[in-house]
């Protein structure tokens, strides 16, 4: 059994309620931080822990905290990013639905560290029932004296509220999230200034993912050094992985970083191998935005080393032969899946979710979707593959926010690793008429036709 930090109490009956959560040792980190530590000491522990942002980018959380502008004297805010919308990712919802008080405890401790007196949890509008769970949990915490004025007689005040979005993937980007929290369209802002200097209502703001904030109580209760002992190298601690697709046991798992991909995929403690026992074809390890890996690069890196569930190992080889840990959205494909159709599906998603602010993304994502659609529907042309490559290369890096990159990478990786499959679609349109064309006859059998 690997170490559990976040989900160790998830099976305790009634853990969603304040009474049970408190009885199980909940809110100890708030007591410890407020009574026995200074805000800077809390930041220092989080820095020592090596905790990295769990939303996808993997930026060290303690460092992000240390950038917050404390000199200007303006009010500061902590905003929890619970907008989780990356296809393949559903870990934050699981955590909030079953352990709402863990997030609230983390919000209080983290807000104390940052000197924030007004904090928000920004949750996506579709998670409306989770929004209600959090609202009730906040009311319980407030009634018990963990929120409000003069918490634990320390003179520290904190108000915490939940704010719901309304269906926009882009609001997971931190500056778009802030815009949305201000009651506007979710158009990302140009950085700098970074939110740490000018964020919510132009005040210094830190935006952190749910899982990042939920890791803080353990770090404060134990120590940053103890947290850093878990995991491998710069990938410290545990990570929630949400697994979906063609696996036997999809769901949310907490793993110690450093576990091999092979063990995660195949051991009965985790995914238990493939659903319906068909061969593994491809894997997306970190949500739809990260490059897809073909079967031969999943368990081993290009150098022949074991592929591990760490930030470093999954990105080993760069985009040529690697991918990214991202948000931990682990999507598994067996040989009945069509990579062209799947790539089209993602491009449709990014086209739909582009905010429309930057031309390369607004127009380019639509072009990607259209070209992929015609290839998938038997109307592709030989030059379309190079056209796709050209479009994605012109979106990447040319937009205000990373949605442009996120739209480009899956297309680039699909062409890089599965070019033959695109060629097959273009040359044999009659063979792909049925939407489930690889279900009866997996591509591996038809592959010879393209060579």
């Amino acid at each position, binding site marked *: 059994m690997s170490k559990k930090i976040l989900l160790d109490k998830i099976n305790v009956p009634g853990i969603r309620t304040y009474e049970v959560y408190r009885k199980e040792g909940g809110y100890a980190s708030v007591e410890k931080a407020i009574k026995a530590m200074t805000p800077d000491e809390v930041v220092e522990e989080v820095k020592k822990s090596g905790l990295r942002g769990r939303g996808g980018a993997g930026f060290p959380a303690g460092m992000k905290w240390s950038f917050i502008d404390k000199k200007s004297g303006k009010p500061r805010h902590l905003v929890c990013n619970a907008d989780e919308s990356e296809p393949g*990712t559903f870990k934050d919802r699981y955590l909030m639905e079953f352990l709402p008080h863990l997030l609230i405890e983390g919000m209080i401790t983290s807000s104390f560290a940052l000197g924030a007196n007004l904090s928000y949890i920004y949750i996506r509008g579709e998670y*409306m029932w989770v929004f209600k769970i959090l609202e009730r949990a906040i009311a319980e915490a407030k009634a018990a004296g963990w929120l409000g004025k003069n918490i634990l007689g320390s003179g520290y005040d904190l108000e915490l509220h939940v704010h719901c979005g309304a*269906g926009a993937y882009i609001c997971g980007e931190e500056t778009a999230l802030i815009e*949305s929290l201000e*009651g506007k369209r*979710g158009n990302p802002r140009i950085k700098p200034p970074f939110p740490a200097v000018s964020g919510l*209502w132009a005040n210094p703001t830190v935006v952190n993912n749910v899982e990042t904030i939920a890791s803080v109580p353990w770090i404060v209760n134990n120590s940053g050094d103890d947290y850093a002992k878990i995991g491998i190298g710069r990938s410290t601690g545990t990570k929630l992985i949400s697994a979906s697709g063609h696996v036997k046991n999809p769901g949310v798992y907490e793993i110690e970083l450093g576990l091999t991909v092979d063990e995660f995929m195949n051991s009965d403690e985790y995914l238990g191998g493939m659903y319906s026992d068909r061969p593994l074809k491809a894997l997306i390890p970190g949500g*739809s935005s990260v490059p897809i890996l073909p079967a031969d690069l999943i368990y081993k890196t290009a150098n022949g080393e074991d592929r591990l569930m760490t930030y470093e190992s999954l990105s080993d080889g760069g985009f040529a032969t690697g991918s990214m840990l991202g948000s931990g959205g682990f*999507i598994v494909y067996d040989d009945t899946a069509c990579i062209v159709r*799947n790539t089209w599906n993602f491009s449709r998603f990014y086209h739909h979710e582009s905010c429309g602010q930057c031309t390369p993304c607004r127009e380019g994502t639509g072009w990607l979707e259209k070209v992929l659609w015609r290839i998938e529907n038997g109307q592709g042309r030989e030059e379309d593959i190079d056209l796709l490559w050209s479009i994605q290369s012109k979106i990447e890096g040319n937009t205000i926010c990373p949605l442009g990159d996120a739209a480009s990478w899956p297309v680039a990786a699909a062409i890089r690793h599965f070019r033959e499959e695109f060629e097959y679609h273009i040359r044999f349109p009659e063979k792909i008429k049925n939407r489930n064309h690889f279900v009866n006859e997996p591509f591996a059998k038809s592959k010879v036709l393209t060579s």
Partner: protein
Amino acid sequence: MWRVGVGLMEKTHYNQEINMTPELMERINELISHYPADKRKSALLPVLHEAQDAHDNWLSIELQDKVAEILNILPIEVYEVVTFYTMYNRRPIGKYMFEFCQTSSCCLRGTEDLMDYTCEKLGVKIGEPTADGLFEVRGVECLGACGYAPMMQLGDFYKEHLTREKIDQIIIDCRDDKIILHDK
């Protein structure tokens, strides 16, 4: 009777009976109190959700204007937000809106076939309400339930691990008025 909203991509409908009940106003004022007094606009998204839930799940121009008035902002500030976010409906929709997630992981587990089945069973096309206004089927992007696919959103709740049999049962429950749409 409806007119076409100027500059909006989808037709925006008018003539909705607006009823800002005391309970609704109380909830709205509570939401407004979550933000600093000079930042009322920040409450816009949550307030729109509440207004929509209380008005047959759609927001007419009149209702949007009413929200602008409550928050003391310009009507255009509401329109631009309503047209940006997908969860705000600008036309009357089916009472039971089946919103199927149609992104990758759900498709791998058969969403597309299930949507076809549901449409056929209800005798509708995607995006068109049934004649009695009771049902509508729509495909939406990732709802964050990839491991419980195929799935759909119905009101405030998710229906997961769907099968044809489960769809049949949900339709029966909707007709019998046994489905709770909003958690109030």
